[in-house]
Structures are given as structure tokens and as C-alpha cells.
């Protein structure tokens, strides 16, 4: 990820806005979160110019490797309770086999951080919201657990928490009965770090995932998508996901 000064500053701005968001929820019930999120931080304008995204090179993604999945679970405190059907999965490895050619692929799939997110469109309370920088999140304070977002998401990106949880990661609040999904490790991004999955993939030497600002022409991700063919999952739905795949 390229980290020029502007990006760092705007990330700080988002951090301030996250705090303002929480304050706003508590101070002014009835005010919709999404409006606050779109407002400006006291000291810093929010840059809608940033669009965080991921580029996944499926040629480099090793079949059977689930380092990203494990890193996500550790980072976000997702525990294996032995009930895979009800355990939350924010990222999963999908193994693919082309029915006609027999070609196989292995791809990590997580919330695609759609530009036109159906989960946000249907959410009755505004708990599902898109940050100015394109990260789609759930506000655990106002999610009522209606699961409408899960019905609407074409990528199966969301999970619901089925029972009370203990030992949470303080950076990643989760709650019984609330919907959740990949946050692009927003708490790390706001600290100028990479999402845990990307870090793990790089550490393992696969380098299959790149994180960065799709709108910054100098960023590696923007240059890569400008140069090589990349696809979006179910591009026919025209949701313009921020997660792109190469080699599919």
C-alpha cells in the first residue's frame, strides 16, 4: 500500500469520525449514523476521494492455504465453537472448478465492500452503512438483528452472532444477535496498517492480496488494476465491489 501523507491524514480523519459516530449515536438518538459518517471531522475533511479496495491474484493464491482466514479469526476474535453452520465467517476460501474446462481456482471471498451495497439499501435502521472511503460496516449499537442484509447480500458476506460471546477483541466489538462481516480491518486501516488477511498472505510469501486506495493513481492496487485484467464477482449485478480478482 502506498502511504503518502494525504492518505495518512485522511485515515486519521476517519478515526476521528468513528469516534464522532459513537458520540453521535449516544448524544443524539434519532440522528442517522450515515449522515454523521458523511459529515466532516472537526479538524479534517473526510476524503471521499479514497476508495479502499483489495486486489486478489488467484494465480498466486494457493489451494488449501487458509492463512488469511486464520489471520482474520485471530484479529477479529472469531472463535470456532464447533458449530460451523452458526459460527461467523468473515472470510472463506472458495474452491472453484470450471464445469466445462475443469480449470480450478482457489479464492478468498469476504465482504466485497460494494459501492452500491444492497445490505445498506435494505437495512431498516441504518446500522449497515458505507463509510466515505468505501468501507461497508455494521454499527453494532443500532443493528436489530433482522438479517435483512444477509438476505440481500449476493456474496454471503455477512454472518449473524447466534449466542453471547466473551473474550472479545477490544478493537472489534461484536454482539449477540447482531449482523457482522469483514470490516477490511478498519481499526487497522485507521492506524495505517494493512488488513490482517493481507498481512498474513504477504508474510507467508504468497503475495496474493494487495490492499490500497483504488482512487489513488500512484497506489500499487490502482496501477495493477489499470494494467492487468481484473474481474468483480457477479459484476452483472452492477454493485461495483471494491474487491477485485485477477486470474479468474
Amino acid at each position, binding site marked *: 500500500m502506498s502511504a503518502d501523507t494525504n492518505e495518512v491524514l485522511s485515515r486519521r480523519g476517519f478515526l476521528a469520525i468513528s469516534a464522532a459516530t459513537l458520540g453521535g449515536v449516544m448524544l443524539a*438518538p*434519532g440522528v*442517522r*449514523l*450515515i449522515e454523521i459518517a458523511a459529515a466532516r471531522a472537526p479538524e479534517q475533511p473526510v476524503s471521499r476521494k479514497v476508495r479502499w479496495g483489495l486486489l486478489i491474484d488467484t494465480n498466486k493464491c494457493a489451494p488449501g492455504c487458509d492463512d488469511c*482466514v486464520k489471520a482474520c479469526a485471530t484479529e477479529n476474535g472469531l472463535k470456532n465453537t464447533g*458449530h*460451523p*453452520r*452458526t*459460527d*461467523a*465467517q468473515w472470510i*472463506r*476460501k*472458495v*474452491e*472453484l*472448478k*470450471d*464445469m*466445462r474446462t475443469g480449470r480450478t*481456482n482457489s479464492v478468498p*471471498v469476504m465482504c466485497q465492500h460494494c459501492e452500491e451495497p*444492497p445490505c*445498506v*439499501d*435494505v*437495512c*431498516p*435502521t*441504518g446500522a449497515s452503512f458505507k463509510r466515505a472511503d468505501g468501507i461497508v460496516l455494521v454499527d453494532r449499537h*443500532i*443493528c*436489530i*438483528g*433482522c*438479517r*435483512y442484509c*444477509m*438476505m*440481500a447480500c*449476493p*456474496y*454471503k458476506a*455477512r*454472518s*449473524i*452472532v*447466534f*449466542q*453471547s460471546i466473551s473474550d472479545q477483541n477490544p478493537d472489534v466489538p461484536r*454482539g*449477540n*444477535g*447482531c*449482523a457482522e462481516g469483514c470490516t477490511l480491518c478498519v481499526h487497522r486501516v485507521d492506524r495505517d496498517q494493512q488488513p490482517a488477511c493481507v498481512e498474513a498472505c504477504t508474510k507467508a510469501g504468497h503475495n496474493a492480496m494487495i490492499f490500497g486506495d483504488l482512487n489513488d493513481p500512484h497506489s500499487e492496487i490502482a496501477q495493477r488494476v489499470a494494467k492487468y485484467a481484473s474481474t468483480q*464477482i*457477479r459484476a452483472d*449485478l452492477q454493485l461495483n465491489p471494491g474487491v477485485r480478482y485477477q486470474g479468474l
Partner: protein
Amino acid sequence: MADSLIYRELGGPSRRFWSLLALLAVPLALGAVAYFYMEHYGHIVTGMDNQIVWGMPHVFAVFLVVAATGALNIAMAASVFGKPVYRPVAPLSALVSLALLVGGLALLMLDLGRSDRMIVAITQLNPASLFARRVIFYDGYMVSVGVYLWFLLERRMNRYIRPAAIVAFLWQLLLITSTGLEFGFNFRAAYDSVLYAPMFIAFAAAYGTAVLVLILFAVCSWEERPVAEALLRRFKNLLGIAVGASLFFAVLFLSSKYELARSRDVARFLLFDGGVYTALLWLGQLVIGCIVPLALLVRSQFSRSALAAACALVVLGGLAQMYVTLIGGQAYPQILFPGMVETSSFFDGEIHPYTPSLVEVLLGLGGMALAAAIIAVALRALALLPTRLEVPAEPQA
């Protein structure tokens, strides 16, 4: 209001009425226990998981909401379309509609993952969301039907019945169309068809009329209230048309899914290899819910028991249809990569299993019992039905 019609509350000794309420209190109490159990332990005690996220409570809830909108048709026929023969049952039609809607909405609320935050749903309404629009439709519908019912009952307001009915009719149209489109605009393979809008209008007419007639029969068996055969024949015809339309749209929908290459697999799943969903579709929705009732209804000889049986079958078929639509639609995997075989730890590419748990069924039945209890209490407290449903009221009351 025509003087020839004397509207009267449900009669009978109060002990008998209290026993009826006590009977209804059993499913209500069980529903309440189920709710608190779910609320305490979380949705882990249901059969739902991260793939089947709407379970049995939604089957009952959506059935009730759909039947609620259809139950108003009779009142609308009387007050909007000037069919005086239905005037005697117009107040009952409005009441049944409201009660079913309350039962359905209560279920939707109680099945929330965070039902303790119900108030958030109201105060933090996201006006841009489809769902929020539906909350507005629910409110608008309830208020307009409430006003309409009040005008029916209040002699001084009788002259405003028609405008009130027209407003209620518009809300009814909005509510049922949006319910259908909620499925129609969903990306899942089993949904994603605008045919859901007209299909749900037909379903609503069938389920709503069936419930209304069953309640009318229940009142008649509670006490002597003669019902003109002419009225029942009308009900029979209306129900026949609604069931016929339901069948027509269901066949059109399924065959259009099958004809289009991109949705053929899901049609094949529902029609042939879906196991319980296939069985419920053919046997429940189509045979029990449409074909047998139609056979009972088209017989030229009129019989009350045949009409009552047809109504009961339509309700059962309706529940089966909701199960197929809601659960079957979720059980079929969401396709992320068309043309590829998908496997993952998150069950991509697999048919998702679902077994409703007892708590879910009890909660759902509780919602049904709530609607029934509201109808019983309102009929006892308010003069909603004439003593004799024989004399047609004056034209366009």
C-alpha cells in the same frame, strides 16, 4: 347504515367466552415462553444458521401479513367497488385484516436478533431502506384501515366511508405489491422475478378470503347468525377466482424460471429434486392449496362444508407455499461464480439444510393465536357483525 341490519357483539355466556380466551391463551403463552427462551439463549436455539437466516417465524409472519392484505378485499368490494352484498361483512373484513397484520408484525419483531432494540427500529428508521418504506406502508395501512373501520361503525361518519375506503385501498395495493417485490428484487436465484408482485396479490386474495370465511363460520357456529346463501356463494366464487389466479401465477412463475437458462437449475430444484421443498410445492402449495380447493369450489352444488374445507385447505396450502418460498429460496445456494462448481467452509454451492426447532414453531403459532385473540375480543366488545347476514344493506353504505 341500513336499519334492516342490526349489528351486534358476539353473544353467549361470559363463561363460554372466557373459556375461548383461555383456550387461545395456551398457544399465546407457549409463544411467549418460546420468545423468552430465544431471547435468552440467542438464535442458536432455532434451526436457523448463517445460510438459512429467516426461519419458521417468518413463514408464519409473512403468511399473516399477506393474508391480512387480502382479508380487506371484501370490505373494499363493498365500499370502493360498490357491491352492497358484502356490506354486512365489511367491518369483519377490516378487523380480520388488522388482526392478522398485528399478529404478523409481532412475529417479525419478536424474531429479531435484538428484539430488545425494537424501539431503535422505529426511532432510527433509515428512510432510504426498502424495509423502512415497508414500515411506513404498515403504519399507513393500519391507520387507514382503522379509520375506515371507525367510519363504518360510527353512524355520523358513514358518509365518509367511500373516501376512507379508497385511501385504505391504495395502502393495501402498496403494501401487497411491496411484499411481493421484496422477493422479486432479491438477487437469490429463487426470487429475482417481478412476477412475485401479481403472484402475491393473488395469494393475498386467496389466503385473506379463506381466513375471513373461516372466521365467519366460526362466529356462526358460536351463535345463531343466519348467513344468506347468496353471500356465501359470492365468497365461493371470489375464493375460486383468487385460488385460480394463484395457481395461474405459480405455474407461470415456475415455468418462466424453468424456461430461462440462467434460472433453470433453481426451477429444477424446486420442481423435482428439492426433497421436502418439492413435496411441499406439489402436494402442499399446488394440490392441497389450489387444485383440491378449486375442485371443491367449482362444483355447481353449493355446500357450506365444502366451502369451509376449501378455505382450510387454502390456508394450509398457503403455509406450505410460504415455506417453499422462504426456506426453499434460501436453501438453494447463492451462486457467486456462474459456471463453476463452488465448495467452501461456508457451504458455498451446497443445498442448505434446515429443520425448524420447536421454539420457532411455537413462536409462529403464538402469532396466529394473537391474531385470533384480537379478533375474538374485538367481536365481543364491538358490534361488528349483523345478527342476520341475510338482508343486503342499502347500496353503497
